[in-house]
């Protein structure tokens, strides 16, 4: 699996990040101002422009090695959106992308920490721990941060999961954001993110988010997710400028097209 390199900090990119979503709609405009439209869902294109500065020799070397591995625009690679939530349907925990334990009951419409009613109530009716997870086709060697807001009717402990990594987190009666940073497992080509709820516990959760970096950023509700298989570099040329000792800069343009 060819994957876009993370920086030494664990981040995938630096500011500014430019991203463009492009769709295709065929429009037949009539003389009286009305229009007849036809969508083309397979034509969705997403592009990113990532500008890097102050890269170390190691980071610049990794970028060059990646460029050589994909041979410019020739080969596809897996790209994780640095400006998005990697998880799909983050606000719809009963969607098929989520795998839930057989004894875990889900109920929507609970009050959330943002002032709405988009939280979910997870009730473990079984005698053992139950999980709710989502598996992404993303590289196990990356550093990820999984975060979710949680509160409980009674103080309890839940376990955040990233791949084989586990981290117990206490959940109180007030909303708190759980954040767990870890890797998905060396060489793995998919990573599982989720929560484990202990037997008999009831926990309200809101805003699950996975990011390809060490810290959690503001929650972004998502439906599509942020893992782009078969992304491509836009250019056959990579220019790395050395601005000093162990200081380099470059700009990378990445494109993902649904129908390719």
């Amino acid at each position: 699996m060819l994957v876009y390199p993370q920086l030494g900090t664990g981040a995938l990119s630096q500011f500014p990040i430019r991203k463009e979503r492009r769709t295709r709609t065929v429009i037949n405009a009539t003389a009286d101002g009305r229009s007849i439209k036809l969508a083309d869902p397979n034509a969705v294109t997403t592009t990113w422009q990532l500008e890097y500065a102050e890269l170390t020799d190691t980071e610049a070397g990794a970028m060059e090695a990646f460029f050589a591995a994909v041979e410019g625009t020739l080969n596809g690679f897996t790209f994780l959106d640095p400006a998005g939530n990697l998880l799909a349907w983050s606000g719809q925990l009963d969607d098929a992308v989520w795998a839930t334990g057989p004894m875990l009951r889900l109920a929507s419409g609970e009050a959330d920490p943002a002032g709405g009613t988009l939280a979910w109530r997870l009730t473990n009716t079984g005698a053992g721990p139950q999980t709710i997870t989502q598996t992404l086709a993303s590289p196990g060697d990356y550093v990820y941060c999984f975060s979710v807001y949680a509160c409980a009717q009674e103080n309890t402990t839940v376990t955040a999961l990233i791949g084989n990594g586990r981290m117990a987190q206490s959940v109180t009666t007030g909303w708190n954001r759980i954040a767990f940073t870890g890797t998905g497992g060396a060489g793995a080509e998919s990573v599982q993110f989720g929560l484990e709820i202990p037997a008999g516990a009831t926990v309200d959760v809101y805003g699950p988010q996975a990011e390809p970096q060490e810290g959690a950023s503001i929650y972004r509700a998502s439906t599509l997710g942020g893992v782009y298989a078969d992304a491509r570099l836009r250019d056959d040329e990579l220019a790395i400028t050395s601005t000093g000792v162990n200081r380099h800069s470059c700009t990378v343009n990445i494109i993902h097209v649904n129908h390719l």
Partner: protein
Amino acid sequence: MASFPSLKTGAVAQYPATRRIRYQNQALRFVDGTEQRYRDCEAPLLRWEIRLSQLDEGEMAALEEFFMANQGAFGSFTFTDPFDGATYPDCSLEADALPLAAVAEMSSTTSLTVVENRN
């Protein structure tokens, strides 16, 4: 029907915002220099140019999700005119492209244009 997403403040637009009103009239000009004009559509159509800055990541993600859910210019939604509060039940995005720029943490910018559709 979907509604255009509002920012955390409850607003849908920031300054500067532009609203355009467009009629579609036709003119027939005759050899003697006179002309005859007529309406080619029953009423004017509105168009709003919305430029947003200093957005946080959540607001930006909501706009991006809205764009994708509408499939760009294809879908239609309800839009509340930020100039006078009037509600327009059938509007669309004008373009099939949405540029997003994260300049810094909690400082993103984008711009889009909403057009009123003729029923």
